[in-house]
């Protein structure tokens, strides 16, 4: 389990231990990765983050069409593996969680412990965002630093 922001680690570790999730990704609503568990390749992380953020954005439009303010979560049921997606508010803005689980867990367990994860993240988040301006010339350095944090390389 790797996280760009250290205060995410403890709540995410508890979630992973309780839910038995195989893969987990926490990202901002724009697809920027905050933490990941179970992925072995950076390209898979970035692909999953981009697709997850896009799926949540698409379902938000469906929610708007049917008159819902937003959907709380989305579950894709597979044959052996399943995907749980949920957006949530944090003091650092709107984040999205993507969880892949198999027969070792259930959607009920994932939902239960994901709600607890959200509550713990909201409680643990520093109230003041770090003072950073991401300039174009810093983008590649920031990206590489994030990838090192997420993959320990």
């Amino acid at each position, binding site marked *: 389990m790797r996280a760009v922001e250290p205060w995410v680690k403890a709540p995410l570790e508890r979630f992973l231990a309780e839910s038995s999730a195989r893969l987990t990704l926490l990202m901002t609503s724009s697809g920027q990765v905050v933490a990941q568990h179970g992925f072995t390749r950076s390209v898979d992380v970035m692909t999953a983050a981009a697709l997850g953020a896009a799926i949540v954005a698409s379902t938000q439009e469906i929610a708007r069409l049917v008159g819902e303010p937003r959907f709380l979560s989305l579950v894709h049921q597979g044959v052996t593996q399943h995907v749980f997606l949920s957006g949530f508010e944090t003091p650092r803005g709107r984040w999205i969680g993507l969880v892949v689980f198999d027969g070792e867990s*259930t959607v*009920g*367990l994932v939902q*239960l412990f994901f709600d607890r994860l959200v509550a713990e993240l909201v409680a643990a988040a520093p109230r003041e965002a770090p003072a950073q301006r991401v300039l174009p010339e810093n983008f590649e350095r920031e990206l590489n630093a994030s990838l090192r944090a997420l993959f320990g390389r």
Partner: protein
Amino acid sequence: MSAAAELLDRLSTVRGIRGSVLVSAGDGLIVAESLMTGVDGRAVAALAASLVSRLRRATESAGRREPVFLQLHAAGGTVLAAPCGTELVLVAVAGPDANVGLARLEMLDVSGRLA
């Protein structure tokens, strides 16, 4: 009121039963519930279904086939679970004053009707 809800309400008349919930075994999601205030039905449903699933694997691995009834004694009461076939699990939350024997009989009767 659905047939399942009626059966759960009947179970709740047993002395000491704080509530009961019918759970989808594969998802851990509530199908029907009859719970008193203060019992986190969603947590009970998800965790109990997961426990029954794991214990089913344990008993089948031991060559004893599927579990019929589970009874967890805690410091403040008991959690009872009865699989209803392979799709559902009936879970009851009991206080320390519960008539566990009667609750077991009722649960086995209900689980047989729902299986």
